[in-house]
């Protein structure tokens, strides 16, 4: 991990008067086991500019923030601050360099007052100078147009106010660069608007802001410069003058094109997978509604024929997870009916629906799909605990369990040191193969795939796509939830677009699908 970095060339001999980026990344690469999080990304950050980073989950945005805030080191490439190559190996070092980070989740102590939170990190022997801090806070706040009560308990503040506190704290520590990692993800639209204005004022004061989001409208409203990341690569950058000249509508098209791949509509990207007569649907969802504090679902209708793949597109966090969990039985339905081959499912629990042949391949593979410390063999049977022939009269039958595991490892080509290896020692691609083995073996009739290639390397992703295709070819009904438009266009027969907990459109997968989906997803056609 700590391999010495290549000796960096001397800083460019440029006169100080000439404007230059505060921070520049030069071909930075960062690998994680089984994944390339950042692939030779070059990125400049200019003072007084709001630089928006756009991209789906797994595009590498968070890794880039982690590199700049000292949480990770690049495997290759260099980071320059003010033209000097630096090594940001701790968060403290990042602060020293003037890089302040506001993470998605508040890093303040809720039980302490605002001013005490500011005082954290001071010398432990000295009594915090609360009055002085409060004065300086008021000063900084006045400059950027916010007022915060220094005596207020952080726990009593709204999320937006907490972010203001964090921004002020970063400024008090002398930050010239502020990284906002998905700062608006948890805010109300109003709060997000306020934050946008604040960011604008910061930029006017000459501070460089990195603003990470996956909401297009925000990016256009706030950003001066927009960089789009995709699967760890920088796929495009829109400079300030171009952004201004494009105008919102053209910019949206441009960004959608960058985020979701080529707009080369003339080339047949993915012809309809195969012609078919319309057989009666196998999996029918009618009027599905789910209560959820973040994204409630309402009025979702979907019918999937045997052998059909229905894709569901949409930006992350528009209710895809809630939908999958509701269908699989992990969430209560507020309303709606689910039938599989004529059998009503909505009153059955997870196990009951599974026995009817409904399978759910979760995208949260380590969080809920598996138990990391348990051996692979048991993880392959996690949804069948107590079932014969693996358990007989409640007693474990190790030979049957081992034989089952060996069979699936062989059939799905899971690379593992052994069937008794804890599953968290496997690479991401192999964990996914194990999950696919668990969900697709046996009497599956309808399968929900949630982002089946998320976080996988190319080869594993290809294998996972192949499994999705084969599942449909075996006459099963398939729902494919994905944020990767290329993947949806490659695999699906029809593609629905989900936005804010509703299905806002359904598109047959023909030549015009890409542009129509782009329009639906960016809200232009909605």
């Amino acid at each position, binding site marked *: 991990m700590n391999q010495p970095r290549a000796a960096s060339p001397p800083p460019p001999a440029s006169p100080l008067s000439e404007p230059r980026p505060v921070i520049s990344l030069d071909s930075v690469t960062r690998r994680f086991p089984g994944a390339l999080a950042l692939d030779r990304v070059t990125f400049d950050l200019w003072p007084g500019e709001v630089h928006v980073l756009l991209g789906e989950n797994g595009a590498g945005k968070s890794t880039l923030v982690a590199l700049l805030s000292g949480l990770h080191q690049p495997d290759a490439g260099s980071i320059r601050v003010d033209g000097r190559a630096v090594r940001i190996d701790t968060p403290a070092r990042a602060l020293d360099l003037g890089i302040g980070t506001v993470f998605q989740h508040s890093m303040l102590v809720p039980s302490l007052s605002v001013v005490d939170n500011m005082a954290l990190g001071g010398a432990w022997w000295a009594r915090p100078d609360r009055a002085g801090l409060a004065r300086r806070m008021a000063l900084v706040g006045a400059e950027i147009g916010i007022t915060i009560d220094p005596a207020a308990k952080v726990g009593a503040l709204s999320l937006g106010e907490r972010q203001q506190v964090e921004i002020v704290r970063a400024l008090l520590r002398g930050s010239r660069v502020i990284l906002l990692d998905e700062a608006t993800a948890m805010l109300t639209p109003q709060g997000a608007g306020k934050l946008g204005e604040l960011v604008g004022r910061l930029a006017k004061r000459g501070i460089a802001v990195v603003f990470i989001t996956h909401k297009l409208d925000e990016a256009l409203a706030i950003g001066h410069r927009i960089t789009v990341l995709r699967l760890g690569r920088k796929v495009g950058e829109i400079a300030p003058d171009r952004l201004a000249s494009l105008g919102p509508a053209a910019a949206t098209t441009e960004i959608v094109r960058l985020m979701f791949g080529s707009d080369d509509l003339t080339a047949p990207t993915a012809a309809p997978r195969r012609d078919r007569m319309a057989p009666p649907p196998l999996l029918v969802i009618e009027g599905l509604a789910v209560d959820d504090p973040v994204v409630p679902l309402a009025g979702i209708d979907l019918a999937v024929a045997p052998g059909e793949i229905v894709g569901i597109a949409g930006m992350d966090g528009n209710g895809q997870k809630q939908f999958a969990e509701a269908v699989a039985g992990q969430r209560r339905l507020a309303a709606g009916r689910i039938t599989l081959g004529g059998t009503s499912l909505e009153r059955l629990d*997870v*196990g009951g629906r599974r026995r009817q042949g409904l399978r759910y391949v979760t995208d949260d593979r380590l969080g809920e799909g598996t138990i990391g*410390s348990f051996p692979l063999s048991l993880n392959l049977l*996690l*949804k069948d605990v107590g079932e014969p022939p693996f358990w007989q009269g409640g007693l*474990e039958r190790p030979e049957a369990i081992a034989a089952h595991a060996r069979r699936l490892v062989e059939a799905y080509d899971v690379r593992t040191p052994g069937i008794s*290896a*804890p599953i968290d*020692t496997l690479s991401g691609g192999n964990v996914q193969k194990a999950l696919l083995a668990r969900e697709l073996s046996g009497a599956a009739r309808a399968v929900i795939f949630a982002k089946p290639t998320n976080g996988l390397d190319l080869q594993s992703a290809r294998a996972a796509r192949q499994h999705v295709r084969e599942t449909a070819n075996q006459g099963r009904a398939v729902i494919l939830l994905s944020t990767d438009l290329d993947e949806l266009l490659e695999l699906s027969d029809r593609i629905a677009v989900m936005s804010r907990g509703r299905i806002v459109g359904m598109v047959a997968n023909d030549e015009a699908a890409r542009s129509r989906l782009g329009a639906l997803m960016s809200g232009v056609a909605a």
Partner: protein
Amino acid sequence: MTDIRRPDHERRHEPPSGPTTTPASEDQAAGNPPGRRGTGRAWTRLALMTLGPVMGALLLSGLLLLALGVDPIAYYGFVLERGLINAYGLQATFTRMGTLLLIAAGLIVAFRAGLWNLGGDGQFLLSAVAVAALAPLLTPHLPIALVLLAGLLAGAAVGAAWSMLPALLKAYQGINEVITTLMTSFLGISLANVLVKLAFHDPATTVPQTRTLAVADRLPRLFGTTVSSGLLLGLGAIIVVHLVMTRTAFGLKLRVVGANPRAAIHAGLPVPMLTVAAFAISAALTGLAGAVEILGVQGNVRADWNPAYSLTVIPLVFLARFNGFAAIGFVFLFSVLSIGGESAARRTGVPNFFTLVVVAILLVMLGIAEYLDKRHRTARR
């Protein structure tokens, strides 16, 4: 933190040494089984990892004794002589093991299910009081065997009942069981006292205590010794618990809930029901321990009696990493220390609870050993 909490069972399949994060494909490509050299080193490491901390704890405790002005060799000598070598001492050690093993079995069920049942003392004491009140009332009317059976069942039932409030709050409201079990434990201890003084006190004495079960009516002793048959119950319970937790579907379900509650929901397990079941079993075993202590050893409950066995056993169960067989070893070691320590305390003037100090130091030493081991392994990688 070290992963001292990770149950032993879950890593039984790991190779004894060697990097476990080696990319799988590499391992297969090389086709190398773990080398002999590695196995030898693994054994050395295991010996170092268990014996080292024990020696270290004895040494540090010895230094503490020196600081108190007590000859550590004499103290340890008394402990060994009174807890292990002397026949009466050894029998007392075995008798105490019975009660402690039942508590350990109860704790293992809860801890493996990821439920921190810290309310064992309340469950234990309430059961003890209920049994002490019930058994002398039944003796005139029932054969002794039936009285004992009724006492054991009542103890288990009372223990389980006292755990239901935290169990239901945890299962259906998600309220942290550490807080609720501790609170109900304090309530249970106080309630037990009140019951002894107000409801169940023996009118024949002025001392506030329950009626005393005649020695002839207590749990049978084993093979003409003074060892109570509670030892067999304890050994049986902990072995059964170990096998149930490691070899059955029910045990696996509890472990799934304990290891990753979200995975349990994803897999469709009835998490609230399993939570209540784990609590009930855990507390029933603790209640059984209370019954065994009364029916086999004490015969009655005096007001303000609280041996705090459950809180004492918790570190032992952690040391054993929730493994039933390892727990037998640690409970034995602790019983020797505590029986021997009682008489060593009388002779050397060291407070009785010095044995707890030794256990605490041992726990810290094991934590340190595990930390060093982990660092060593990371460094080698």
